[in-house]
């Protein structure tokens, strides 16, 4: 905490300062979430409420094969993005550390982060196109046959590639910030002891940024459940359901099929799953990160 005491200010009126934020928070997040929970046990017919207190939506959840596919796809997406976003981010950070002047490098790699996902989606959809797509034409230069990037079984893989292109730079920045703070002296003494750069990286530098690694893990795992824009833009209606994930299935259930009750039940399920994952990551954090030493 900052130097000096925090005075005993506030007392009875301090909370007033939090009111604007609180109001918005209630309006946008709390009340809608409560609504959603309520709707999940309601009987709706399109937009008309017919009754409250039915569990039929929750009973439908385990029987829904599309939901099962969404689970599988989401976990697949999660696994791929851990590699493509965190793994690549680490790799890039390691390179950036070794460059003397890395600002240009880091800025360029980070640039895709500021793009709207719709732009990335449209651009890469074109890049993945069968005939006039960037990737297939590049392959053609090397005499390799065209790949059906967005069709099963590559659907999730290809979308993860795009996610990686966008977010690796974000994680690179985070890891770089941590790595750059490690004093030279630590790695220097390791070199003197005869350690190779790779050993230094894995045995010394990585553990020193493990809090950042866990943070990255949290972001990627919870983020895998939020991925909507890329999927919607690149797959459209996705008749084969090869890329169906929670958000797209939710939007479809809620808006196209106008099944508010079931859509709400899916939302609740999604929230519970995300909270569970957070719990798991929190445990990992306690075990792996523990009390980080300052350096």
């Amino acid at each position, binding site marked *: 905490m900052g130097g000096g005491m925090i005075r005993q200010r506030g007392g009875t009126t301090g909370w007033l300062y939090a009111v604007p934020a609180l109001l918005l928070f209630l309006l*946008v997040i709390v009340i809608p979430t409560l*609504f959603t929970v309520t709707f999940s046990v309601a009987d709706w017919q399109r937009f008309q409420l017919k009754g409250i207190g039915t569990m039929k939506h929750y009973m439908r959840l385990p029987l829904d094969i599309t939901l099962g596919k969404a689970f599988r796809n989401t976990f697949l997406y999660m696994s791929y993005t851990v590699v493509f976003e965190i793994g690549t981010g680490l790799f890039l950070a390691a390179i950036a550390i070794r460059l003397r002047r890395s600002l240009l490098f880091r800025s360029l790699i980070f640039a895709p982060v500021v793009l709207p996902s719709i732009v990335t989606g449209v651009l890469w959809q074109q890049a993945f196109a069968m005939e006039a797509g960037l990737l297939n034409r590049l392959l053609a230069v090397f005499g390799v046959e065209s790949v059906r990037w967005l069709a099963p079984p590559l659907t999730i893989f290809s979308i993860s590639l795009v996610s990686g292109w966008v977010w690796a730079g974000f994680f690179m920045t985070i890891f770089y910030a941590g790595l750059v703070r490690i004093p030279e002296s630590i790695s220097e003494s390791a070199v003197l002891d005869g350690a190779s750069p790779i050993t230094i990286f894995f045995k010394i530098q990585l553990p020193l940024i493990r809090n950042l690694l866990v943070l990255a893990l949290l972001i990627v795992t919870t983020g895998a459940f939020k991925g909507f824009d890329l999927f919607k833009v690149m797959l459209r209606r996705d008749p084969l359901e090869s890329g169906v994930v929670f958000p797209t299935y939710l939007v479809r259930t809620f808006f196209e099929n106008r099944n508010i009750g079931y859509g709400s039940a899916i939302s609740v399920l999604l929230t519970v799953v995300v909270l569970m994952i957070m719990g798991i990551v929190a445990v990992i954090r306690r075990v792996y990160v523990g009390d980080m030493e300052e350096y």
Partner: protein
Amino acid sequence: MWSRILTVLIMLFYALPIVWMYLSAMRTDPDFLARPLGIPKALNFENFVTAYRMADMTRHFLVSILVTAVGTIIVLFAASLAAFSFSRLRYRGRDTLFALFFLGLILPVQSFIVGLFVLFRSIGWLNTIAAMVIPTAGMGIPIAIVIMKYYFDALPSSLEESAYIDGAGTFLVYRAIVLPISTAIIMTVAIFTAINIWNEFLIPFVMVQSERIRPLTTSLYVFSTRHSARITLQMAALSIIVTPMFLLYAVFQKQVQRGITAGALKE
């Protein structure tokens, strides 16, 4: 030497789709379809003009600017006040309140989008500017509060101490002392929030259906589905939208980078 080559290769991989986008935008469809990996024969800006006009971009740019600006201002106002209170003031329920906002940080938007839609429908606020501003601002507040609170925590409180001793009220301390020395973090949060609101797709997609008040993101989606056959035209539309963002990023990249690293290290 090795790393030099590697870095160049990596930078190439990153830049390639963007370069391809700009180059293709300057070509014509038949030319492009014949050789997708080619270079334009001449600098042809026709696609840009056509795309801009067809997609009615002036309007959508303005909508996006409006929503982003108003949303960011709201977030800065509400979040700085709240963060100040969490960091500098003591009152009952302070820590619970802060924890509540922390929860809002991790809740996926899908948890409440359904309820949000129904809520706004019953108030009659669907398909309005407010339908975009309020949700995006609300979603941006938790992260802004967390970042600012940690920043405030790290500030020395000596200046405030003397101000209080001199009899200054709490709000004056907030306005005249804490805020002015926090311009860096405010800038960072502003940029961060602005980028997120500008790029938001799901909220406008769900809450707004009128062409008239569509922001850039959803209008680009409509445009690209409607004209998906005209590839070079689409590339031009993308280029138009992306260029100001890249320019702004080039100007503010240091702040952005610094903001992310600061947020990460506070973790």
